[in-house]
């Protein structure tokens, strides 16, 4: 369902539950209003593009975009993940395994432009073409960002399981 995809993307970009809901609400009402002028064929990519723009706008307004680099400090990474995740259902927290928390933390630490690509590819299972449309970049950029994102995740999770 597109609404879930919209929320998932906003949430992973903003890393804050309240901001994500506000952005989705604003973006969807706008999308609904603009729909008659939409002439493309892929409504999901179009919608996600609007959501992404709204999310970036909210980020900029709030604190300027700051990109947290991966693997600078493993402890800090864990803390940030907890901070960024306050509204989760406590029940979900309990049943979520350590490994799952870890992968969320690693994703949270990815630079924004890499994180959004990997969310769109691995969680939304979108094609390169759709991702390129959403992030308004060439397909080549999508490919290299995906590769960088996955390599960082792979290295980080290997490092984490060793320590």
């Amino acid at each position, binding site marked *: 369902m597109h609404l879930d995809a919209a929320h998932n993307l906003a949430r992973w970009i903003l890393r804050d539950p309240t901001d994500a809901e506000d952005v989705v609400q604003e973006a969807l009402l706008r999308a*609904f209003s603009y729909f008659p002028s939409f002439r493309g064929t892929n409504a999901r990519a179009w919608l996600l593009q609007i959501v992404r723009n709204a999310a970036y706008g909210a980020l900029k307004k709030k604190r300027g975009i700051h990109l947290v680099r991966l693997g600078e400090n493993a402890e800090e990474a864990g803390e940030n993940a907890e901070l960024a995740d306050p509204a989760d259902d406590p029940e979900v927290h309990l049943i979520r395994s350590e490994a799952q928390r*870890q992968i969320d933390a690693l994703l949270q630490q990815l630079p924004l432009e890499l994180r959004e690509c990997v969310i769109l590819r691995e969680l939304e299972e979108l094609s390169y073409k759709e991702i390129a449309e959403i992030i308004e970049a060439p397909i080549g950029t999508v490919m290299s960002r995906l590769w960088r994102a996955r390599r960082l995740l792979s290295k980080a999770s290997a490092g984490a399981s060793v320590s």
Partner: protein
Amino acid sequence: MSTRENCDKVLLVQADFDGELDAQQSAALVTHRETCPYCREAWAQLSDTRNALRRGATYHSASDALRRRLDRQLAVAGMVPVVTHPRPSATGTGGLLAWWRSLVGFGLGAAVATVAVLMLIQPVPSGDIADLVMENHIRSLQPGHLVDIASNNQHNVKPWFDGKIDFAPPIKNLADQGFPLEGGRLDYLKNREIAALVYRGGQHLINVLVWPADGASEPPQLLERAGYNIIHWQEKDMTLWAISDLNTAELQNFVALWRTHP
């Protein structure tokens, strides 16, 4: 070039992994992986990472509260499309309805149907009035132009209009709901005198332009001009235009409150 440290085919291997290649290209890369340790390792890592992500990463679905909020806003405000440039409806309401259904799911069928009906009977408003409303709003923001009577008491504003115009504009104070009345203004638009009611929402000003209209009531319609959000509706023989630089959701909230206020 392929070494243990790098291979210039690795992005193609990734594309193959992501199902982006046709069968022929894919077969060539399978062969390549047999002879390239770097790409073989890359494939294994891609696969591990995907498994970890799809098994472990949290998928943040929209909450039911958000779903309900969106649905309520659209239904209450009787949301209809922005008409930036009126055009024959090629996409049509069927397309919009289908998209909206795919968006919110089928659980909200009744509300979706309401919205669809509202849209079907909704005439496209003439663009020129919206332009005039926008110009009026901008003019009102010039120093000294906003209000002729500054009062946040509707019982002062209402009699002020008496005798100045040939109709009694509906004046409501929404201070308790976060939109205090700032005052009223006599204005001129489309060759007739109109009443302008001024409200404040946080740092933003809202003009509600009112004049008599004949005909049926019309549900609110959202428009946009030069970055301003405009909502137009008709009720109790009055036509009303609310305009502000408030964002879409907030202006819709304002209009919904205004309409339900006694």
